[in-house]
């Protein structure tokens, strides 16, 4: 599919929705973070596809996706650190146990 962008966008949409489902449903916090990474990957795919096959082909899309990857990595690191700390304090990494927003 070298000339149209639609398959890439569809694929990205599928990956995004799968990642969304995982983020909303999984019990383990690590898996939730992982699903968020998947969603970010879908976005990256979109960006790179548009950079080649979109309305104004340019390299800007790839630059953007690089930045996105950086952010995602930083966020994953901080997320894992927080998860480890929570695990140390609560004894569990089950997201359903983190309900202090109830009150």
């Amino acid at each position: 599919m070298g000339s149209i962008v639609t398959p890439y966008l569809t694929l990205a949409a599928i990956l995004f929705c799968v990642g969304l489902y995982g983020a909303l449903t999984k019990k383990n916090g690590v898996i939730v973070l992982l699903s968020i990474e998947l969603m970010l990957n879908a976005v990256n795919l979109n960006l790179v596809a548009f950079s080649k096959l979109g309305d104004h082909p340019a390299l800007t899309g790839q630059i953007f996706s690089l930045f996105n990857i950086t952010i995602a990595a930083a966020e994953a690191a901080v997320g894992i650190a927080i998860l480890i700390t929570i695990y140390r304090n609560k004894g569990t990494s089950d997201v359903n146990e983190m309900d202090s927003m109830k009150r």
Partner: protein
Amino acid sequence: MLNGIGDFLSSGSSWMFFIFALLAIGGAIFMISFTKVIHMVISLALTFISLGGLYVILEAEFVAFVQVLIYAGAISILMIFGIMMTKHRQGEEEEPRRPWHEGLAIVGSLALFGVIFYAIQKTKFVATGAFDAGKDNTMEIGKLLYNEHVIPFEIMSVLLTVAFIGAIIIAKREED
């Protein structure tokens, strides 16, 4: 769209796309359907790698390289470390069934996909120019990065510094 499948099957890059896409989707589906956490991470790593392949098809070699390096490499290992440090016993990996919640989440995701798919189909994409990738993708990206997008680049480095310092401090065991 059915006409497109005929064109689709005719070129080699379409086959590659198809294979990589299948691998990516398969990895994602397996990720959410496996029960053991380690398996989930491995299947997602497969997704990351196949995405890298897709980037190559899209003539974004540098991005593909970075993708495999960072995602399939660093982040997957990071996740495995996270799992190792937070896991209790084997039995904890059982998920309690929450049918209402899962049902609604499936409905929501499918609906979202439907909306996005509809939007994608309805949009008319008109290419205004050919993509000039240049001979060396990395060089081109480097040129752009340090000439036009240097400020975001610097901010990125600050962000990374802050992030890793922050992560260390958060995760540090408190001295009693």
